[in-house]
């Protein structure tokens, strides 16, 4: 099944790099313009479970990598086929300067909180997302905190060392 899916993907979309590093995994690298169409195609092909949407900061290459992990639910309610153990990892790179991407919530509604989280922690803006409001953090950061140039230890020292320690009076 891996092979037929690989061939189908290659014939439908141009400029894909597809690797099958192991039997249960297909790694697809695509141009950012193609990603939504590929997601739609894969969903129609039965990969209807967006398990995770993640981002990686490759600071040396000056890009962010968005990573969609797709698996599939069962076709029938209790029939386990080889298909459920297959993971598709779809990756795309976007420039690190003013990063922007189109929202995938139209295809997978459960991408909504993942996109909110990535927007908050990496500063990647998702066009068309209905509520890109903060999810987890309470402070404002100059650099979004999950980027590689944000130094947690330095930040902790700068911010929390300023808080004066509590003096205990002796009676």
């Amino acid at each position, binding site marked *: 099944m891996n092979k037929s899916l690989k061939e189908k993907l290659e014939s439908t979309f141009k400029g894909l790099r597809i690797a099958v590093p192991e039997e249960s995994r297909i790694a697809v690298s695509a141009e950012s313009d193609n990603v939504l169409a590929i997601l739609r195609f894969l969903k129609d092909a039965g990969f209807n479970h967006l*398990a995770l949407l993640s981002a990686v900061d490759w600071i040396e290459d000056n890009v962010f990598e968005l990573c969609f*992990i797709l698996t599939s639910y069962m076709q029938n309610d*209790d029939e386990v086929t080889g298909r459920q153990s297959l993971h598709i*990892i779809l990756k795309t790179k976007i420039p690190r300067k003013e990063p922007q991407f189109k929202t995938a919530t139209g295809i997978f509604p459960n991408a909504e909180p993942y996109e909110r989280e990535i927007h908050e922690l990496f500063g990647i803006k998702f066009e068309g997302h209905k509520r890109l409001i*903060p999810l987890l953090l*309470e402070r404002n950061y100059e650099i979004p905190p999950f980027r590689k140039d944000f130094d947690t230890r330095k930040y902790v020292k700068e911010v929390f060392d300023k808080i004066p320690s509590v003096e205990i009076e002796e009676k």
Partner: protein
Amino acid sequence: MRELELYFGPQHLGMVGNFSITLKVEGDRILEAQANPGYLHRGFEKLMEYRTWIQNFPLVCRINVVEPDHIEMIYAMAVEKLAQIEVPERAHFVRSIYLELARVGSHLFGLWAYANMLGFDTVAQWAMYHRDLILDLFEELTGGRVYHIYIWPGGVRRDFPPGFKDKIVNTLHSIGGCVPDYDSTFFNNRLFYERANGIGQLTREQAKQWGATGQTLRATGMKFDIRKVEPYAAYDKVDWDVPVREDGDAYSRVWVIRDEMIESVHMIFKLLDDMPEGPVYNRIPNPFKWKVPKGDAYVRCESSRGELGLYMVSNGEDKPYRVHFRTPSYPNGLITLEKLLENASIADVGNIMISLYVVAPEIDR
């Protein structure tokens, strides 16, 4: 009628844990709900980038207080996959038994939360006591009651101590002996049925669309369990079944949890019988100088709440480059909860939230 904004949690009797919901209500009816996580955001994924592969073990288990064991397992699985470490046969069995014990403990904790919230205090106390018996087992095996740090890349930290097998059997028998009591006071109780039946109704299509896994999905009739569809540890070595229900409401979800506990206990007995002899861990390279090869991996396991996944990237250094956990409470608590609360009544908020089995620390990480 006038629209009001109502803050539900984090300090509220119906709220368990560090989580809050902002409700827009008209009378008793909820028009719109917005989940607010972040009260326990510790940034583990970022902190892990500063620690070596082994140093991360005491860190990962703190992501979910209720069931740290599955998170240890998933992290060990990801490291094993990236570094291509083999696990001995006996370790697979030990891991499965350990994880199933953790599942029973976690379900009992969940049962405590649910029964407590609905006012079934007696059942809640029983569940907490029985969970304590399982914690005693963990204490003897690992030295820790809540956080165990027992699973290790290449196996587990130590083998079962002498006589431990009998202790597991005795403990599980004494818990199993109380199932009729639980049934008559809680699961088959008319009061509980009236309170939970039809609450938080979810169809299978909705569950699939909102990324639900675990009980939330299985209560709608789909036998989707990672232990079956992508077996890890020793789950494919014994015969067991996935409990399901058809209705998709809070009552079904709780019954799936109950059946799952019983199935887990049976599975532990089978695993104990079939357990082979042999070593329980393979040696790993010197942890102080250990560099894991370049690459990325997505691994997943079935925690007591659903699909627990981990996406990990290594760039060939002694620390992980990027770690991202996919926790089952994340879609349940942030999407399904918000959607199910629409048009519900205020009295059902806690009921719906706990029946979805949401654990806030897992969402925040």
